[in-house]
């Protein structure tokens, strides 16, 4: 069938099962926007290309399906570099289509030209510059295959205008339904080495102080169920990293919560004191390990990862298992189901863990009558007033850490955040993308005022496109996490962290964007505002919670310190560890 390249591109996306995409048109991508009118794909028109990228990420986080974004050349492409990098760091499957100047004009510094594939090389899993209309269907197929298999990640496809413009003979192509991928260098491995599984099982049976160190890879591998079975049949405690919150239920008795720089005391300390860490889809990130040579000094390591380059990158494993986390977890469970999980006595370890849990729970000083609102209190009230499977998105900073600490994540794919790159401004568009992917679930965006001001304009998109997310703005008038570091490590010299107490007027701003806006100043008004927000389902809601600026995120491992030197809240500082 004769087609032009633009029609072929949209057809190829439809064949990949794409039913929604996020984007913003412009000169170079214009011809591809025409066939969208006749397509079954829902296109969500964003207000800034960064929003399109983060929406696609939020969509992918919540659904497990690849997020798709389409933008124009030059500034459109550069504006989506941050989401690409974010997705690359957090292994989020994305396919991003960028317009490009006509093929013959590449390299001439044409209007809105930039070297998109050059710029995005190091922030994508792979990228393509398509030179021929006939190659479009194959390239799209390859892009989705690469984005979603192996270690997932973002793939960019750069499309010169002439090969999609029906007015140009170079756009003519012959459509065929069966195109073969041609990726001789791409062979992701998913199966696991049985010998390594047996060695790991032996090590697990013998361990006296084992901990399952669960990373985002478990969610990517859709392995939450398998993990639960493994944990229960072995009785081994689980920590879930920032990228894995929800991979194991927080309310489960074996769950120790989040480890790392702002992890809870028990999770951090159990890893430090462990004799075996079973790392599943985790990459020994510096925010988890603290000073690496002081991390879990007595622990042997079993490391399961689909990316061979992660095995031994940071910490040399005693048993390395390359492959899909779910396959590996199920294989381990099979071994234990057949031959038992061993009978090593772990009573002493369990009692140490419960001792830490009793002495060092997450804690903040509750506000006294007349005190200002505490951000942790807002999260707790929100958690208790929303359905169990509510999706929570966050930006980056104090509010993100409080949300990850004080929320109770009992379901996978309910936590959407920017971990590796730490992208302020992620929250609002990511929440929108999650809501688009899961329209029947309640989606709350827990954001900070610094982050909110970076991408809040996408609430206009949410209103216009009828995507009713809810925003809990923890507004302390500061870049709170930076303020915390300046307080603790720079002698309280606050440099460029105060935003403003008065502007913007968030309630009025929200209303101007078509949302319901509310403002809450005191603890007594929190519940009523949340209840009102939960009732509204025909437009976005923003609640401006005016919270105390002096609250700090505890516990904390100071940057460069060992996890053994975790700083606990003042009321716990004299307790025996």
């Amino acid at each position: 069938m004769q087609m032009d390249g633009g029609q072929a591109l949209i057809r190829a996306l439809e064949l990949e099962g794409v039913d929604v995409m996020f984007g913003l048109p412009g000169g170079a991508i214009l011809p591809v926007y025409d066939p969208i009118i006749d397509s079954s794909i829902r296109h969500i028109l964003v207000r800034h290309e960064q929003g399109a990228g983060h929406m696609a990420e939020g969509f992918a986080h919540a659904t497990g399906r690849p997020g798709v974004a389409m933008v124009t050349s030059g500034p459109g492409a550069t504006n989506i570099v941050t989401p690409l990098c974010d997705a690359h760091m957090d292994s989020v499957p994305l396919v991003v289509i960028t317009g490009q100047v006509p093929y013959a004009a590449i390299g001439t510094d044409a209007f809105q030209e930039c070297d998109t594939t050059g710029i995005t090389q190091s922030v994508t899993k792979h990228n393509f510059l398509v030179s021929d209309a006939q190659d479009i269907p194959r390239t799209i197929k390859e892009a989705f295959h690469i984005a979603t298999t192996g270690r997932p990640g973002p793939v960019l496809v750069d499309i010169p205008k002439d090969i999609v413009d029906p007015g140009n003979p170079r756009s003519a192509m012959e459509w065929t339904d069966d195109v073969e991928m041609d990726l001789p260098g791409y062979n992701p491995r998913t199966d696991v080495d049985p010998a390594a599984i047996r060695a790991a099982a032996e090590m697990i049976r013998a361990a006296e102080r084992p901990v399952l160190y669960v990373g985002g890879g478990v969610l990517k591998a859709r392995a939450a169920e398998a993990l639960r079975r493994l944990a229960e049949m072995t009785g081994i405690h689980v920590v879930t990293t920032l990228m894995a919150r929800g991979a194991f239920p927080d309310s489960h008795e074996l769950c120790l919560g989040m480890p790392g720089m702002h992890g809870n005391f028990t999770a951090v300390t159990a890893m430090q004191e462990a004799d075996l860490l079973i790392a599943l889809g985790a990459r020994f990130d510096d925010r988890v390990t603290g000073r690496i040579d002081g991390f879990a000094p007595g622990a042997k390591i079993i490391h399961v990862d689909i990316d061979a380059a992660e095995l031994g990158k940071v910490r040399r494993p005693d048993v390395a298992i390359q492959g899909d986390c779910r396959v590996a977890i199920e294989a381990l469970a099979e071994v234990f189901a057949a031959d038992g999980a061993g009978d090593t006595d772990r009573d002493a370890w369990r009692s140490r863990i419960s001792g830490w849990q009793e002495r060092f729970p997450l804690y903040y000083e509750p506000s006294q009558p007349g005190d200002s609102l505490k951000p942790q209190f807002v999260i707790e009230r929100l958690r208790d007033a929303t359905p169990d499977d509510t999706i929570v998105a966050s930006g980056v900073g104090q509010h993100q850490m409080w949300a990850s600490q004080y929320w109770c994540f009992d379901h996978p794919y309910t936590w959407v955040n920017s971990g590796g790159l730490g992208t302020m401004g992620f929250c609002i568009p990511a929440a929108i993308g999650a809501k688009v992917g899961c329209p029947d679930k309640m989606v709350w965006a827990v954001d900070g005022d610094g982050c909110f001001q970076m991408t809040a304009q996408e609430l206009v998109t949410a209103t216009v496109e009828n995507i009713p997310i809810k925003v809990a703005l923890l507004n302390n008038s500061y870049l709170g996490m930076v303020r915390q570091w300046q307080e603790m490590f720079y002698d309280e010299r606050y440099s460029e962290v105060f935003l403003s107490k008065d502007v913007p007027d968030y309630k009025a701003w929200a209303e101007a964007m078509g949302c319901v806006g509310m403002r809450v100043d005191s603890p007594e008004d929190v519940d009523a505002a949340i209840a009102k927000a939960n009732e509204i389902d025909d437009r976005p809601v923003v609640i401006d919670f005016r919270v105390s600026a002096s609250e700090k995120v505890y516990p904390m491992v100071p940057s460069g310190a060992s996890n053994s030197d975790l700083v606990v809240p003042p009321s716990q500082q004299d307790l025996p560890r």
Partner: protein
Amino acid sequence: MAGKFHVPDYRYHTLVVKVENKSGVLARLAALFSRRGFNIESLAVAPTDDARFSRITVVVDLESAPLEQIIKQLDKLVNVVEIRELHPGHAVERELMIVTVEAGPDRRDELVEHLDRAGGKVLSVGTDSMMLSLVGPPKRVDDFEELLHPYGIIELQRTGRVALANLDEAD
């Protein structure tokens, strides 16, 4: 890719990387080295007998990163089809040097004698200079270059090494 890793007892290791013959592939490889802080000692690129692929022979500095990590990161590049690691003791390595040396009539015989011993060729002779070429193992090329210094090197160009595994060790 290489399934086992030699104990890196040499500072420099040679990797022979078969890549898809597509535009931008060399840039991807170079960008990866720069991004991950791996140092390249030398690099040679040429097409293979199969037009779809090129071969990049890259000598890596193992003081900058462990060999295993370099190979694994390279292997993640979608356009990289195969990586062979050549242990310096188990490979045939060659490098080409072309050099113009100061050589008046009185010094030419002596220079040609050195050249013959090294197995090189005279490419052309000028009034006060000669242009020579030498193909050989990198060490021999190094030694010959050293030997030329007293004569006065006017211009010198080396290709970087190319390598293949010894016949009995090829897989």
